[in-house]
């Protein structure tokens, strides 16, 4: 029997929703399930609504569905926002103290949201409060379990004879998970193991949390024994990782030899730099330990400036940022371009413009990444679709930067960064390292920008004997000295532009774009919609509908001929992206002179679910779809 189960936990930011979700995800993985978890939060430190949905399945999953089967609500806002998303036969576990809360008393609700909510209650002729939602949920066939988190905590304190514990609301996160697992009659051992893993550095905390877990697990399983659903052990599989989205590219950077990363704090990119800094000392096979210099700079201009400076010494260097920071880097990108300096910019997109939705998802920076910076110079824009890809693609991006001596913008996004997923243990041996024409020794006269048929000159580095060179943001001669000579200008511009052909011919086709299924009805997309798209087309396959998909990874220079050849036989082309205008589609129009037949777009700042894509594709198959469908699911 198929097992596919979604668990939602919500509460005010800072209340431990994340910790609870990480524990639940790990328990799910330990029980042998595939895990896909997604974190949603406001730009806020404490108090505003945040929630986490963790989906478990016995099949490979790459996205969330709409709604959830079981929910833990720490506060009234979680209940009013998500209570009616819980599916029939599911359960809500909520803190009993919120039962009498009215909508007006939920101060953190945005006015626009609140007025929609009030209209909703009005239409149902119900009082605008928590208990109305609970009544509606019951009508939906949902079991509703009220628990006093405080009373349970007091009982635990009593049992352990530690009265001070009754104020330790931090334990609520373990309580929330344990209640859920108790209700679901899941084996308790994985929970206790996970607590050990999570708090391994503090033995006293481990013990306390385990006792709290035991108590609340038993409390829920005894008190709410009428619940039908359960989670059983699915058999442990080997070599499975549970990774956070930002860890993929960070681990890729360690493996491929990135030894310098500079950054300025920004959501959702900084987690990656912080993870790198936590592991700044690196174990190296048959050698002394290595290290990565992680520098927090004064702004993003300095972040890319330092990375470029470090790259001049021959070091694989990167910076990591999001849209606002990348905007500041535009001038420096041109400097790296004209000076043929390899550097990798990991761009974790979020919703713009300007500060936009700073903690939410979006894919609106594709055309900017391609066009940022004044003047004409070659660059590579490359996108990864999920956490696993981001690990392996990071290695590729550094090779591209070295081989072609260009800046590489590696695009990820908030959806990837804040998801938690199970995947096969990363295999570092699959990452090869190619430094291109980087020199280790030089004899005789050296010209850094020597003209060459492939446009790529042998590259010296600071500190290399006989390797002295000059750089300038001005146009330069072969030595790197300023030159305004028109003939030299053409030679140098042409030399650099030659790399565009080199890039398209040397990057293997399978790294440029990946095709799935028969391409008659064909989705084109890039980046993180990959997961929900693959899940949605699998659902259609079960229904007997074959839909193909091309995941375009090399977005600049655009692999026109390759994509054209793949789309040649496609009768219907469907563009799916998380932006308003269809930025990939505009590249398709520009390069292939073909307008996609349908657009499925989303720009609410929330990632797409497989259900949304499935439904939109359904409309297309039934020939009932508008040319453009805008997705809106999610809170």
């Amino acid at each position, binding site marked *: 029997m198929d097992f596919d189960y979604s668990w939602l936990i919500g509460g005010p930011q800072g209340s431990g929703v994340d910790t609870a979700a990480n524990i639940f995800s790990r328990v799910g993985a330990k029980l042998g399930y595939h895990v896909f978890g997604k974190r949603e939060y406001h730009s806020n430190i404490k108090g505003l609504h945040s929630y986490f949905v963790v989906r478990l399945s016995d099949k490979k999953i790459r996205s969330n569905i709409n709604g959830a089967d079981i929910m833990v609500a720490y506060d009234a806002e979680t209940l009013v926002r998500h209570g009616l998303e819980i599916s029939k036969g599911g359960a809500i576990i909520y803190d009993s103290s919120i039962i009498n809360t009215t909508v007006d008393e939920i101060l953190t609700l945005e006015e626009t949201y609140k007025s929609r909510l009030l209209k909703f209650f009005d239409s149902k002729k119900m009082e605008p409060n928590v208990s109305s939602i609970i009544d509606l949920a019951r009508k939906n066939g949902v079991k509703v379990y009220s628990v006093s988190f405080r009373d349970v905590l007091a009982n635990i304190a009593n049992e352990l004879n530690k009265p001070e514990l009754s104020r330790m609301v931090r334990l609520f996160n373990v309580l929330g998970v344990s209640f859920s697992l108790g209700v679901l009659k899941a084996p308790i051992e994985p929970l206790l193991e996970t607590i050990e893993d999570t708090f391994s550095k503090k033995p006293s905390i481990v013990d306390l949390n385990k006792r709290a877990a035991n108590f609340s697990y038993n409390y829920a399983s005894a008190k709410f024994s009428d619940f039908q659903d359960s989670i059983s052990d699915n058999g442990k599989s080997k070599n499975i*990782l549970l990774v956070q989205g930002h860890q993929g590219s960070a681990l890729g950077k360690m493996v491929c*030899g990135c030894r310098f990363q500079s950054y300025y704090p920004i959501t959702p990119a900084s987690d990656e730099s912080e993870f790198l800094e936590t592991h700044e000392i690196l174990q*190296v096979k048959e050698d002394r330990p290595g290290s990565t210099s992680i520098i927090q700079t*004064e702004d993003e201009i300095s972040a890319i400036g330092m990375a470029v*400076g470090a790259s001049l010494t021959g070091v694989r260097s990167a910076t990591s940022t999001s849209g606002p920071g990348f905007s500041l880097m535009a001038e420096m990108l041109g400097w790296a371009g004209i000076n043929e300096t390899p550097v990798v910019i990991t761009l974790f997109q979020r919703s713009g413009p300007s500060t936009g939705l700073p903690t939410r998802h979006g894919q609106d920076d594709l055309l900017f990444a391609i066009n940022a910076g004044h003047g004409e110079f070659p660059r590579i824009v490359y996108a990864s679709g999920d956490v696993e890809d981001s690990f392996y693609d990071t290695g590729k991006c550094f090779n591209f930067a070295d081989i072609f001596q260009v800046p590489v913008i590696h695009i990820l996004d908030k959806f990837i960064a804040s998801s938690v997923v199970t995947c096969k243990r990363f295999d570092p*041996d699959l990452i090869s390292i190619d430094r291109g024409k980087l020199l280790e020794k030089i004899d005789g006269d050296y010209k850094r920008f020597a003209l060459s048929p492939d446009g790529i000159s042998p590259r010296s580095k600071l500190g*290399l004997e006989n390797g002295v060179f000059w750089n300038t943001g001005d146009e330069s001669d072969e030595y790197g000295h*300023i030159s305004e000579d028109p003939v030299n200008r053409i030679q140098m511009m042409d030399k650099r532009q030659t790399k565009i052909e080199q890039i398209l011919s040397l990057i293997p086709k399978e790294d440029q774009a990946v095709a799935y299924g028969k391409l008659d009805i064909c989705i084109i997309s890039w980046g993180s919609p990959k997961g929900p798209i693959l899940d949605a087309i699998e659902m259609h396959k079960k229904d007997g509908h074959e839909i193909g998909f091309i995941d375009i990874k090399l977005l600049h220079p655009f692999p026109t001929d390759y994509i054209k050849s793949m789309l040649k036989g496609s009768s219907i082309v469907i563009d799916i992206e998380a932006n308003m205008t269809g930025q990939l589609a505009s590249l398709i129009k520009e390069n292939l002179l073909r307008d996609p037949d349908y657009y499925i777009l989303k720009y609410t700042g929330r990632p797409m679910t497989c259900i949304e894509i499935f439904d939109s594709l359904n409309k297309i198959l039934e020939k009932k779809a508008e040319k453009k469908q805008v997705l809106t699911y999610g809170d």
Partner: protein
Amino acid sequence: MATKLGDYKTQVHNDWCPGCGDFGIVNAIQMSLTEMQIPRHKAAIFSGIGCSGKTSHFINVYGVHTLHGRVLTFAQGAKIANPEMTVVAVGGDGDGLGIGAGHFVAAGRRNVNMTYIIFDNAVYGLTKGQASPTLKLGEQTKSLANPNSNYNVNPIALAISSGFTFVARSYSYDVRQLKNVITAAIKHKGLSFIDVLQPCPTYNDLYTRDWFAGIDQINEDTKKPTPRIYNLADTGYDPVVHYSTNTELNEKLTQALGKSLEWGDKIPTGIFYKNELITPYTKRITDKIPNYLENPAAKQKISKNGKSITDISKILDSLEI
């Protein structure tokens, strides 16, 4: 074999205006490199944008002509990645104290072991003489339509308050003193800053060579001009912070800040402040990464036969279920 002064010169034609103060600075840098016998491939000059930005093309060591205001970012990145390089950053006062002021302050806080020289002429020369950050409020150089409407930055005071641990001023027509200050700055363990007063003969008709020489200040007895420029060292001034006590530190900071305010009939030059008791950035890294100096980023091997030699298995183990 000894490296000669000529070895540090390139063949690139120098297109600065005749009489430009920049010449003295380039010469002094080359003299200093010669004096210290720094191998050409072990030194890098990073420069900003403007007339001073061309400096890196005239010196025959690694030369990185960067972007307006951003020179310190490139230079620090390179120095941190390869601490064996002697790194000197140069740029105009508009470059470092206007568009690049944020980086100036941040660099001071970091105290990376390198040298920053500002070519301070109080105008934006290459864009034809606009007011730059060191031009004083109400002053009007010849291409300004109106007197300057902004208060000036005090480079010495800003450097001291930002955390630079070596702060000096020199004068571009006193090449010998300038060379000595540059050498001391390069040898300093930490971030050194030199504010070089440098007449722009084309656009600054206030701070001219004659004005610095004091031809408007004739001594009644000798009938000779009284130069404005004087050397702090000649007055028994001691810029060095000798002990790690707050009293000593505050005394030396106050002394240097006081001297930084002196301007007009007399202008102090030389070393204002020197403190090697503040940890250089290198030390702050080795506290975390003990073998950083022996095995910095630029020296690390990362692959063997195209395969990574970094071992992340322990991290993967911790993520494994």
